[in-house]
């Protein structure tokens, strides 16, 4: 059983490896230190959010407000760095706090009123984005101070954002595997009713899941700002789709119950390599959306068909 489940991640990993080898043969610049570093660094924010999205998808939920939450945090942080209170410590604290608030609002609305998460997060998506656009009047916040961009320095050849991302992946993987919270998430996504009867507090679990994702989005905002050195409040529109795609490609089941951080990391790398590969192969960037959309449709279809097959093997007694 375990081997069978592991196969999904390994197959994606193999595809990724083949893709990388192919690209290296096509264009040797692909496998250069600078290019690899670029791919990794430019996808750290995406990866950090995708770790949170994995939690949410495992509960059979969804969050389409992640990009807005990230920009919400990024904009407030950029504004904070313009005030005398701005220093590395307050930035990190503010990132966590802001992410906590946006995530907790999502979590509260979804768990308290039991409304489909996509509706709530569609709503908060425009609210968070609307707030920062109104606040900044759509103006770009340029020239972030030195101590801010220092967050994305390269130390001993390793870019710091990648280090943060790896740390967050490790913490997330630990939360999922070795804590009561993580097991509740899997239980809930596998079978909601059964989890409830087994004593899992569904509302609390949902609330924590969205709040944790919010915090990760807050941190992603910090990382994004420090990498770019400026903040465009209307930017990274539509990233939520890439985040979902990354998690889904990595084997997270969109119907809940299955997913791993390791898989998501592979999914993020896959997205990054495809994006980079299209550039390396001189394909116009507008093909990107088409490819991503296709990937989502195909992977989800495979997931659903697989689940159907597995379900048909089980003896099912339905009580409605």
């Amino acid at each position: 059983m375990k081997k069978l489940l592991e196969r999904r991640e390994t197959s994606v990993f193999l595809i990724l490896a083949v893709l990388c080898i192919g690209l290296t043969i096509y264009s040797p610049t692909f496998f250069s230190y600078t290019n690899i570093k670029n791919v990794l660094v430019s996808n750290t924010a995406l990866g950090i959010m995708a770790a949170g999205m994995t939690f949410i998808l495992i509960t059979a939920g969804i969050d389409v407000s992640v990009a807005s939450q990230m920009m919400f945090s990024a904009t407030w942080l950029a504004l904070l760095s313009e005030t005398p209170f701005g220093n590395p410590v307050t930035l990190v604290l503010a990132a966590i706090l802001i992410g906590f608030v946006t995530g907790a609002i999502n979590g509260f609305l979804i768990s308290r009123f039991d409304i489909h998460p996509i509706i709530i997060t569609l709503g908060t998506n425009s609210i968070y984005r609307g707030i920062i656009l109104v606040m900044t009047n759509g103006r770009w916040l340029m020239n972030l101070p030195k101590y801010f961009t220092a967050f994305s320095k390269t130390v001993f050849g390793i870019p710091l954002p990648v280090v943060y991302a790896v740390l967050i992946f490790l913490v997330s993987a630990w939360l999922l595997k070795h804590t009561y919270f993580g097991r509740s998430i899997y239980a809930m996504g596998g079978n909601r009713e059964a989890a409830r009867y087994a004593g899992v507090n569904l509302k609390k679990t949902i609330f924590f899941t969205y709040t944790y994702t919010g915090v990760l989005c807050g941190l992603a905002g910090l990382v994004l700002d420090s990498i770019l050195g400026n903040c465009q409040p209307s930017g990274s529109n539509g990233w939520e789709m890439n985040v979902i795609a990354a998690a889904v490609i990595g084997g997270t089941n969109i119907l809940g119950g299955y997913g791993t951080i390791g898989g998501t990391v592979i999914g993020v790398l896959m997205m990054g390599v495809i994006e980079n590969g299209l550039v390396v192969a001189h394909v116009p960037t507008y093909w990107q959306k088409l490819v991503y959309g296709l990937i989502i449709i195909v992977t989800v279809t495979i997931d659903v068909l697989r689940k159907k097959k597995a379900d048909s093997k089980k003896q099912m007694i339905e009580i409605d």
Partner: protein
Amino acid sequence: MEKMKKLRPSLNGIVLLAAFLGIVVIGTVASRNFLTIRNILSIFQQMPEMGIMAIGLTIVIITGGNDLSSGTTMGLCAVISGLCLTSGMPIALAVLVSLAAAVLCGCLNAVLVAVIGIPPMIATLGTQMFFYGAALVLSKGNSISNIPREFYFLGQNKIAGIPLQAIILVLLTVILAVVLKKRVFGKHLIAIGNNSKASAYSGVQTERVLFAAYIICSVLCCIAGNIQVSRVATARADMGYSFLMPCISAVVLGGTSIDGGIGGVGGTVVGVIIFAMISNIMNLAGISSFWQQLATGSILILVVVFNKITENHKLQRRKKESN
């Protein structure tokens, strides 16, 4: 008449009417220009695109589904019709080609949802990106201008002083309202929304009905796209992209349950008019468009939460009575 009858008994109808009147009052107070014929006509020139898309979305949402790809379907159809028109194709043929594309889009959604069984939100999230990508690829990321003048009639003509697209919207609304209320197909749509398994067991061909629902939605998006191409004389891939949120909000505001089974197109149109008036008032008062995004998001959440609370109240009361 149709609309009034539907609105009378429900709490949502009363709220909707109150919101409508409230916004009219606010608008009249906020700007002298609000309640002029010219302004009202201009609302009705811009609003039908969103209205047509929203009534299509209503049909899908009533079945308990959702079509997040509706906005990008509109963009894709707009681009296709724009490309056909600029290539010198006759207008009727160009519109037909875009309609055929819309039917294909609807079929793809329906296959994913009804045949394969992917949750509608997720399936259409994928197709949303796919259609947007397709539109970008077709238009090479550019906006298509030089739409032939003969095509302007669809979005810029007036019949007896009323914009043509408003008449189209009214016609489509009446047709769909009649279908939902009086036709077997409409009953089937609602039945699937209430309980898809039960309706399948009682002889509803759920797959076929869902196919029809998603195709209707895509075709209406295509009509909306063509109208916008004609009105602004350009076609762009991201044309309907920003419509999705306000449309879903309008559907929910109009009393259609997001879980399916309850609802109608009349309420949706009132919902769209309310949103159109809000943005119109903001424009007249010189408030930045960023506030509109904030407002639509807040209204969506407030309405959904309000509906849920009243629904829960009703359930609790029913439980008490049965005890």
